[in-house]
Every structure is written in C-alpha cells, then in structure tokens.
C-alpha cells in the first residue's frame, strides 16, 4: 500500500534535461498509466521511482517519507521489465523466489509462495525449467510472478506486454487488470498501446517534451483534452485538426463553412478546430457542414472508416458506426457534431467549455 508524491522532480543527463518539474500525486491503490511519444522520459520517470536512476532535483515521497536517497531494495517496490530480465542461470522456481531468498525467508515458505504464484499464473508445470526453455509468453508470466510473490507496496511495469503477440497481449492485459483488482496495490504502468492505457488506467499521465501535459481519467482525456497534443495523442484513430478562425459563437473554417459552437463561451482566439473521426456524420451531398469526396473506404464490419478529401480544407478521416454504402469516389456531405468539437488557441491549449456536457 503506497501513496506516492512527486514534487518538482527533475532529471537531467549532463546538460540535457529529460524531465522537468514533474508534479504528481498517486493515491494508494491507484492504477496510473504513463503514456507519451518515444523518448519523452517515461522509462526514466519509472526508473527514478524504482530507485535505479538518481533524481536530479525535487522530492519523491512514498507514504510521506522522502525516498530520493533510499536504495531500490529498501523501497519495497517490484518492477516488471520490458525485457523481463529473468536470471538465465536459475530455474523458474528460483527466479520467482529470488527476492525471498535474498531476504532470507525459510525454504518451505518460499516454496509455498512460489507454488501459489505459479498456480495463479499457470506456471505449475514449468517450475524446473530454465528461462531459455520457455516461450515469450511464459517468460512474461515468470517476470510477473517474480513481482507478485513479494507482496510489494507498489508495482512498476515498463511496457511489459510489448514483446507479445496480439492475442497474448489481450490475455495478459486482462490478467494484469485482475491482479490489480485482487491485490489493490498501487501500480504504475508505461505503455505505447492506447487500448492498454484506456482500459487499465484509473488515471493516465500524458508526458511530452519533459513535461506532464495532462493527468486525468481515460474519459477525461478523451472528452476534455487540455491541449492539441493530448487531443491527438489519445484516441484512435487520431483526431482531425483543421485550421479555423474564431468568430462569434463558433468558428469559420478555411473553406468558408461556419460551425456553431454554442457550448464554448468564446472561441475568439481559436486557430484550429479538432474533431474526432467518430464525431463526424456522413450525410447526403449538400446536406452537411462540409463537402467532400471519399478517397478510400474501409469496411471493418462494426465500423466504416472513410478517408475523405474535403473541398477547400484537405484530408479528414471519418468513422461511422455500422456499415454505410459509400464507395471510393462518392461525393459526401459531412456533418460535424458541434458539441463534441474541440477548439485550440495559437499556443495549442484547448479552449474550455463554458458548461460541461453531461
């Protein structure tokens, strides 16, 4: 059980500043997911929490106790590495029990806990094998087993599923969700995968350029992104962003179309309009806000993706629920769901809604 606080935490390598002024409170038992583009410092932040990387500035506290100079072994945190980092010369049982072995736990207690964890993870029959005799998925499970056996006060995961194939990923994702439900331990999880982030997280932390861009629940980030970066980073397919000019009660687009945005108090300093593909409706030509030509239509069964070329505006992607009859080359009208539209100022920040749409 652990409450974590990061206060103005900084990290630099020599003169290169990788992270600056990270402020974050993590509640006991919370599942936090760190996302951000490659190289933004997710692993670095995780490793500072683990104690594997010195903190260049600021304070890191667990349960109110300053941890900056505490060794990894004394932080009581378990970590699952992307590479799994199994000890190649030890069999599965010893790999899993190693933390207890180091702490001098009696052999029979160790064996009991290992057997228990192995049963949960379906590793019972593999206990005598060496890591090199396991499949990728089995190695991943051993790495998880090694972490859970200790009953630590927090778990850290650095892209734990990224080396698995799609089916196994889904399975292990559910496994981790179940684990969190069962143990209720604080977890911090780094991933590149949108679905993992949106499904697992209590709160998502979006990192970019060494800063936290936004912290919020998955729905929060999806519905109320704080800025253009978060808006485009969260959600798949990516949000369409087109140039726009603020006008009274709405915005004017480059093709001359006027979009009324009554839910925005003042869109005066807007320079861009953002709209997610799923928030655009396809209507008959001439009946919508925008006129477009379908360039490519993908039928996914449950959804239809339309890659459209909008007259005077450029490409936009539209996702329609269910099947529609559109084909490449068709002329379409596009209707923007104004209450789901986002508007960004010149510095990229999103203009807040005047009233929340429930």
């Amino acid at each position: 059980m652990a409450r974590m606080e990061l206060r103005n935490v900084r990290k630099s390598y020599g003169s290169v500043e990788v992270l600056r002024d990270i402020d974050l409170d993590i509640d006991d038992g919370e599942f936090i997911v760190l996302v951000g583009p490659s190289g933004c410092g997710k692993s670095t932040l995780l490793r500072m929490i683990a104690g594997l990387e010195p903190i260049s500035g600021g304070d890191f506290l667990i349960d109110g106790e300053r941890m900056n100079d505490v060794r990894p072994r004394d932080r009581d945190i378990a970590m699952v590495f992307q590479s799994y980092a199994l000890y190649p010369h030890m069999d599965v049982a010893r790999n899993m029990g190693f933390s207890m072995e180091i702490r001098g736990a009696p052999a029979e207690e160790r064996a009991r806990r290992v057997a228990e964890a192995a049963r949960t993870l379906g590793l019972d029959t593999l206990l005598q094998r060496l890591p090199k005799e396991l499949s990728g998925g089995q190695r991943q499970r051993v790495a998880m087993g090694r972490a859970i056996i200790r009953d630590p006060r927090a778990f850290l995961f650095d892209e734990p599923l990224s080396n698995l194939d799609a089916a196994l990923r889904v399975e292990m994702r559910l496994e981790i969700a179940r684990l969190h439900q069962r143990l209720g331990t604080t977890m911090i999880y780094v991933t590149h995968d949108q679905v993992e982030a949106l499904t697992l997280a209590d709160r998502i932390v979006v990192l970019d350029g060494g800063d936290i861009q936004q912290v919020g629940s998955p729905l929060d980030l999806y519905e109320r992104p704080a800025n253009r970066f978060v808006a485009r980073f969260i959600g798949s397919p990516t949000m369409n962003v087109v140039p726009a000019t603020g006008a009274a009660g709405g915005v004017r687009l480059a093709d001359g179309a006027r979009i009324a945005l009554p839910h925005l108090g003042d869109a005066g300093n807007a320079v861009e309009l953002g709209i997610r593909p799923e928030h655009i409706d396809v209507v008959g030509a001439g009946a919508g806000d925008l006129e477009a030509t379908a360039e490519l239509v993908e039928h996914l069964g449950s959804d239809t993706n339309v890659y459209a070329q909008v007259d005077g505006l450029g490409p936009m992607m539209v996702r329609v629920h269910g099947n529609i009859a559109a084909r490449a080359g068709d002329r379409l009208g596009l209707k923007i769901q104004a209450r789901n539209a986002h508007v960004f100022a010149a510095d990229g920040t999103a203009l807040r809604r005047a009233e929340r749409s429930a």
Partner: protein
Amino acid sequence: MTTRSSPLLSAARYLALALYLGFALFPLYWLLKIALTPDQLIYTEGTRMLPTLTTLENFRTVVFQTPFLSYFRNSLVVSLGTAAVTTLIAAGAGYAFSRFRFRGKKLIIGLMLVTQMFPLLMIIAPIYKMVAALGMLNSLTSLIIVYTAFNIPFATFLMQSFFDGIPRDLEEAAMMDGCTRFQALRKVVFPLTLPGLGATLGFVFTAAWSELLFALMLINSNETMTFPVGLLTFVSKFSVDWGQMMAAGVLALIPSCIFFIFIQRYLVQGLTSGAVKG
C-alpha cells in the same frame, strides 16, 4: 544456415577443415615423434613420418636427470599467479568500464591502449633497471608482477566485453529483488561471467606459460628459471639434444591442455540466453 546442403558442399567443408587441422596439428605431431625417436635415429631417419623404433628414454632423462621438474614448478607458479592476479584486477576494471561513467575513463582507456603499442624490446632495459633496483632479480614474484602489468590491458578489455554482454536489466532486476549492488554482482553477474573469467584465465595463463623474453632477462639462477628459459639449456648443455628438448616440450603442453579441459565448459557460449525476450 540451412541444415540441408549438397553432399558435395559438405564434403568440401570437411576437406577444408581436415586441411586446416593437419596444418595446425602437424608441428605437434612432429614434436611428439621426435620426442619418441631414439637419439641415434633422429638424423638417420630424417623426415620419415613414422620412426622405426620408439622409446621413452628421452622423457626419462628429462624428468630424472635435468632440473626440468624445477623449471616446470616455477612456470606453474608464475603462470597461475599471473593468471589469478590479472583476472582479478581485469574483472574489477572491466566491470567498472562496462557499468559506470566516471571522470578520466577515456583517459585511462587511452593509456591502456598506449601501453600495448610499444614493442616489448624497447622497454626491456628500463624494466630490468627497475627490477634490479628493487632487488627482485631472479625472483618469481618479479615475473608475476611484470606479466600482470603487461596482460592487464588486454584482459581488461576482454572482461569488459563480457560484462557488456550481460544485460544491465539483470542487475537492476536483482537490486529491485532486494540485492545490494555487490550481492547482484555475486549472485547474478558473477555466474554469468564464468565463461569470460575462464577465457581470460586461459589467455593469461598461456601467455605467461610461454613467455621467454622477460624470463630470460630477469632470471639467471637455475632455481628460479621458468620452463621456456630452461628449454634453452638443452641447447648449450647437450649440444642441442633434440630428443630431450622435444620431450620437455611435450611435457610442457600438458598443463595447458589440462587447464583448457578444465575451463572449456565455462567457455561454452550462450549462458545468458533466455534472459531477455525471445
């Protein structure tokens, strides 16, 4: 590589291997042949592949009537001492080079490379003066020190490359599991470095075992003579006694062979496989 290849190709491969082996092993065969040939036949039979008569007389003479055993023991002491001390120091230095960033690292690596650039002949005189000034001429310790000094750079780079091959994640995982850095080193890194330690030990041992130049300069007394120097005594004493010299050579191969048989299981690569993904 494909497992199936044309029989012609694999025949050619075996032929090439056989040729190479023949080339590499022939001198050893010749050594053994002359050692087993009775003295009076060495010249008369010349280049016959198999001697008409064989004898162990040469070996008997070498072992019982020359100070060979003493040379042998001295060489063993020097080589084992050098191998142990060098490997210990090289392992520490190699680990530091592999894992830590510290001031002066580049400079130290540069200096170590520089020491490898000079022909040994150039520095023999200064080394002699230093050892003489310390009053350590004719001592095995001086040889161990000198050999250690000369082998450390290469051995360090060798060890560093072995440490580089062990993923850092493993140590970090061990530290997360509750190890101190030293425990992680002992319980995780050390067992995985055994092949590296074996290779380094073997390399340094052989280098020290066959070193002649410094041994010749620094050792004069018969009591502390090492084997390669001792071998030269066969030239003067018995007006090049080929048979005994070769017999001594054959005996000198034994420790090297034993040593490599002993460490070869640690030389088998792939100990770290399975550590990371797959």
